């Protein structure tokens, strides 16, 4: 080997070899390592261009999904009024039923069989319902504790209590990013619990989610320091050219040091990022018809931005849609909240499909838990439902999901799961599976232990996979 070619390997910059072997190595099976290593040595010759923890990587096995949009409806959307019809409740109206711990509240909404599959969909989601044949509804979700904070973190990180990396961080850690000019994991809007839901915890900071507050309609406010108020682009170009010249003189004195080279490259990346990131959030680049289909405010804007981001190579977009905690006024609240996302999500699915992106984009919808079949005794207005962790609904579409099915079953009230229980951890395992990972092998060594998203739990639900 030509000594001059032998620069420290790719990981030395951000993680030295020791850190790589100890921590990363465990993340990949022998199969993927074989494909990883030659790539690394080839890249080593390319120098610091590849010295990036976000460099794209192959998963454990071939699969369809390459990226994820997680539409997270925080607050605990009712499963009984959306995706899990329980017409039988009506006959108990006004009667105390011990199985549900109170007086059952029948859903005020009509359900209709939709699509070829004939899965029943609530009127509040009639537009998403038009895509039901691409959607796998999981009616048997369950989680551990019906408190918002705990269950929210449980859904976003797989742990309600401890500081664990977010699902998005794990995915980014596993797959890397195909666009170095944008963060690989973006949390749109954010919500309860804050950064705990998109942090990388003990994974390196490069895998941290970047919070973007999408209420800022001006793209330059979205990523810190993305726009210069101090110099024009041509002027910055000239600055960077001079910088490069200075840095090269400095490198001549210091020797071939990967860390120095990487920092030089990071300025070039940053320079390009300025245009690219601005572009991702600039919805004026979309045709009028597309903007109209999504709607340009609120969730419409969120979904359209999410699509633009994944299109540009962002691996994981966590879209927060808050306000689903309907203790009171279930009917009007539900019409309002669902009404606000029905068309945007339908537009997202249609748009992804038309672009051929639904095949390899996994769309996940759901909240942190469901709601009780009984009245919320504390309701302060029209009837509502209380928190409920024993049963709730999530759905997935695209990315190798077997659509047109309603998986799992709850009892006649929707109180307990009676068939094909899918725990929060199982959903995570399945999402990782769809992305090509064995969830038990996507691990990271920390404190002498190999941690994973699913802790010591999780089973892939094969029936959800096409």
């Amino acid at each position, binding site marked *: *080997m030509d*000594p001059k070619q032998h620069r420290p390997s790719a990981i030395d910059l*951000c993680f*030295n070899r*020791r850190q790589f072997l100890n921590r990363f*190595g465990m993340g*990949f099976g*022998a199969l993927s390592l074989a494909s990883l290593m030659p790539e690394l040595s080839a890249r080593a010759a390319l120098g610091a261009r590849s*010295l990036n923890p976000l460099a794209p990587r192959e998963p454990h096995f071939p699969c369809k999904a390459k990226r994820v949009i997680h539409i997270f409806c925080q607050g605990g959307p009712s499963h009984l009024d959306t995706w899990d019809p329980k017409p039988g409740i009506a006959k108990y109206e*006004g009667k105390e039923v011990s199985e549900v711990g*109170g007086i059952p509240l029948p859903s005020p909404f009509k359900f209709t069989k939709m699509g070829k599959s004939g899965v029943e969909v609530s009127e509040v989601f009639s537009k998403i319902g038009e895509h039901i044949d691409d959607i796998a509804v999981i009616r048997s979700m369950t989680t551990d504790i019906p408190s918002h904070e705990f269950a929210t973190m449980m859904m976003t990180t797989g742990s309600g*209590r401890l*500081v664990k990396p977010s699902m998005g961080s794990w995915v980014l850690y596993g797959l890397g990013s195909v666009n170095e000019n944008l963060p690989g994991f973006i949390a749109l809007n954010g919500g309860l*619990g804050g950064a705990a839901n998109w942090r990388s915890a003990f994974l*390196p*900071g*490069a895998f*941290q989610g970047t919070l973007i507050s999408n*209420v*800022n*309609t001006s793209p330059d*406010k979205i990523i*810190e*320091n993305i726009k210069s*108020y*101090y*110099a024009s682009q041509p*002027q910055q170009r000239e*600055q960077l050219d*001079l*910088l490069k010249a*200075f840095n090269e003189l*400095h490198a001549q*004195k*210091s*020797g071939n*040091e990967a*860390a*120095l080279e990487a*920092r030089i490259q990071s*300025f070039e990346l*940053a*320079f390009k*990022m*300025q245009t690219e990131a601005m572009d991702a959030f600039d919805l004026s680049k979309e045709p009028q018809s597309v903007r109209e289909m999504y709607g340009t405010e*609120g969730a419409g804007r969120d979904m359209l931005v999410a699509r633009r981001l994944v299109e540009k190579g962002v691996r994981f977009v966590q879209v927060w849609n808050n306000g689903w905690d309907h203790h009171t006024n279930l009917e009007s609240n539900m019409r309002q909240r669902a009404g606000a996302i029905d068309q945007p999500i339908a537009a997202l699915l249609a748009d992804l499909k038309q672009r051929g992106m639904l095949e390899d984009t996994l769309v996940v919808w759901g909240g942190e838990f469901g709601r009780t079949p009984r*009245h919320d*005794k*504390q*309701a*302060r*207005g029209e*009837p509502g439902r209380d928190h409920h962790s024993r049963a709730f609904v999530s759905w997935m579409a695209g990315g190798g999901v077997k659509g047109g099915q309603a998986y799992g079953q709850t009892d006649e009230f929707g109180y307990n799961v009676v068939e094909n229980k899918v725990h929060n951890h199982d959903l995570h395992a399945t999402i990782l599976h769809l992305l090509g990972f064995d969830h*038990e092998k996507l*691990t990271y060594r920390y*404190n*002498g*232990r190999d941690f994973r998203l699913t802790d*010591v*739990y999780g089973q892939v639900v094969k029936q959800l996979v096409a």
Partner: protein
Amino acid sequence: MKRIIGSITGLSLLALASAVFAAAIKLEPDQIEFFEKKVRPVLVEHCYKCHSSQPDAKIKADLALDSREATLKGGESGPAVVPGKPDKSLLIKAIKHLDADMAMPPKTNKLSDEIIANLEQWVRMGAPDPREATDRKVGKVDFEKAKEHWAFKPVSKPTVPKVADKQGFVQSPIDSFVLAKLTEKGLAPSSKADKRTLLRRVSYDLTGLPPTPEEIDAFLKDNSKDAYVKAVDRLLNSQHFGEHWGRLWLDIARYADTTGDRQNGGRRNPLLPYAWTYRDYVIQSFNQDLPYDKFIVQQIAADKLPESAQDKSVLRALGFITVGKTFMGNENEMIDDRIDVICKGLMGFTVSCARCHDHKFDPVTQKDYYGLHGVFASSRTPGEFPLVTEPKKTPEYEDFLAKVAEVEKQVEAYHDGENSRIRGGMLDRAGDYLIAVNDAITSGAAKGGNVRNVARKYKLEAAIFELWLDTVRANSKGKTHPVMAPWVAYAAIPEKEFAKQSKAVTASLGKDKPASAVFVKEFQQKPPASLKEVAAVYTRVIGELQKAVGAKPFEYRGGKTRDRKPVGETKLADERLEELRVAFFDDDKSCVSLGEREMSKLLGVQFRNGENAIRSTRYALEMSHPGSPARAMILEDAGKGRDSRVMIRGEARNLGDVAPRQFIQILAGPNREQFKDGSGRLEMARSIATRDNPLTSRVWANRVWKNLFGEAIVRTPSDFGVRSDSPTHPEMLDYLADYLMDNGWSTKKLIRAILLSSTYQQDSKTKDKAMQIDPTNQLLWRQNIRRLPFESIHDTFCMVDGTLDLTMGGQVVELKDMPVPTRGRQYNFNVDLKVAPRRAIYGFIGRDQLPDAYRSFDFSNPDMTTGERILTTVPQQALFMMNSPFVADSVRHILAREDFKAQKSPEDKIKFLYRITYQRAPTDKELTLAKDFLAKQMTEEKPVVIEVEKKIDLSKLNQMSKSERKAAMARLQGSKGGESAKALDAWERFTQVVLLANEFVFLN
């Protein structure tokens, strides 16, 4: 490539091993509950002694019953339990004493029928069993074997190797250790770095700041033999030494100025107003070279040291334990955090892994963990932290006291206001409540559960409404209180029948059920025509009572807290009302209980929330008011100390054996003594800070080394367990640890010894041959090139631009151009921090609220102890350098410096910039590049048009749509640069390039 292939094989094996971690079976909560309540206690009490692998137990008949696996496997006679089949389960046969040979428990100790029935039912349920397999051979910690691990062996006094030294490299024993290894691999050490590089390196390594140009000049001129030693000693004695090394320590201490909890509607204030006093303690301790063993003991148990009685400032040390997260008040999480910071931070021992089960790899048991748990469960933080010194009566202090008093007054006013509103209303508006209650009952709303809705309809207090509802319900069936009897009777009349039936009811009042004379008299005098009139009488009469009693609402008398009765015990002269007074204020079974317990159950949360919301403003005052006196965030013993019980699988409700408070077995030996002195914190601290502990001195020596080389000897600095990296130079590590202890645990002496070695003073140039053999420089054939940490980058900018305020210590500030993000109201602390260009260590650190720049420059995560920051190079860092107001301001400050303006020619100006930033003169090549750049930029200079956000017209806010308004507000909050931004001119752009260059942020 050979190395890499070797590693791959190793890796796949490891990957396989990790897959062996089988997924645990998930049981239903009710199954677990059944097992934990009805099965486990029986097994523990009656069976474990002879049938378990627990310590001190036996395994008779080869049968163990202390894990699911073992139980199913059974012993000599076969499986003990066949799930679902009690009649085929030997366990059931045995406890039923069906077979005399097998009767268990033996002799006459047959279990009760109830217990037997429970166990049968359990087997019928399928024998759900959450207990994890504790295979006797694998699961048990093998202490003897663990002792063979290098880190658990006593620190040795290694012999310094003799090695051929042609270069004259060996200046200290350290060099001998290093050279021996290099020679072994056919490598040679690098030559000494040049003086300029060396002074820059040692200045940053000791103080986190660059040398001044004057210091460089003096050092270059000093040709004496000990010039370097003098420089090292000067820097070791600099006050800034403590700031730099203190910050490194704060990473380990997971320091922050907030608890990490969210605001929760303002009810919980996440500020830690006095965390800074711990930070100052750390800085001072490093500056005074407090022996490291003492440093440890003070940080864990200062309150129990005699010296803290004389000098309260020592108490600040306890912040090490108390500046952690508070986990929304979850005590076990807090204790876990404390165990973690102590064990990982001080001993590189991942003890917290044993929270849920014995450690899988390292020799630490769950009992060890809960032994330490007991220490912290027996400690508490006091309601008010003690003053560090008696505050002087300055005007600031007086003002602070006045402001705090005002907050307390507000709390009191709130309390009084709410109290009289609620309880006043409760009695004054009795009739309104009764009418509403009647509505709820007759309309059926009370049944549907939406009673609060009814209360709202009538504009009544929901909690009080519920109280009246319960009262009416209770009195409607069974026993009726005399006061309520008339109401119940009238309310029972259907609305339309009232006129017809009320006469008869009035006539019968007090006949079949006792009724209060006041009311009977009232109604007989003027028979009511409607239920409303009945209610009006209740309102009037009870209102009179309230007035006559005249007590302040929510005042209680006698008895134990929460069981007290309301004040109102004085007899009333008015006989008519006295009967009622007894009913409401004296009688335990009064019709509507006003007792404290009842009230606080109903209103406690509401009150506490309201109060806390006001009181939380006090934290902000304490943190930022200039007159707020320093307090120490102490921990103290709560009584005599109490052992914790093992929490099976880490679940607080799933308790196992008692774990005595004592030190970790592998370190203290099997015959360790239990802690006796209160919580045991002092004994624990002393078990850590001792020569007998093989970890403490090694871990610290390793950390010190890492701070001076960028890479440590053990490259997992917070994990010295069996899965850690082996030391690159094991003998040298022991030599350093021993050196530390032999020199009275003096950190400064250890640092000095390392700095004076040739190893440290090597240059950092890469060399092809060495790069091939040892690319990550494990053998130390050179000094490492290191990027400055975030704090040093920040401080250097401020130092170079002349704004750095070198004031030491005191309350936290907001760093200039590093606004604390207030993401949403949940993390808006309403604290008014002073903005100042201080060193970064004095900047506010909000958990989950670090300014973006901190994160992108790899600042440590303050949520957990951090032994090494993982350095990354990401474009966000470059964006910060290129576009942030921080850098632009800094550039402008530099050019505003008088000494810059004094430079006449462009060449002088360039030279000046080089001198203050890189402490050297530019080369000819650099000078040419600079001049060319400036010349070109100057000629092309024309007013640059940069799109600047349009000014937000605040007067238009009302006309905006909701989302527009939201966006505008967000823009206002986040506006930096914004309209105040002004484009940089040519000189400024040039200066920026100088600051952006690698040389500025890398240490050679």
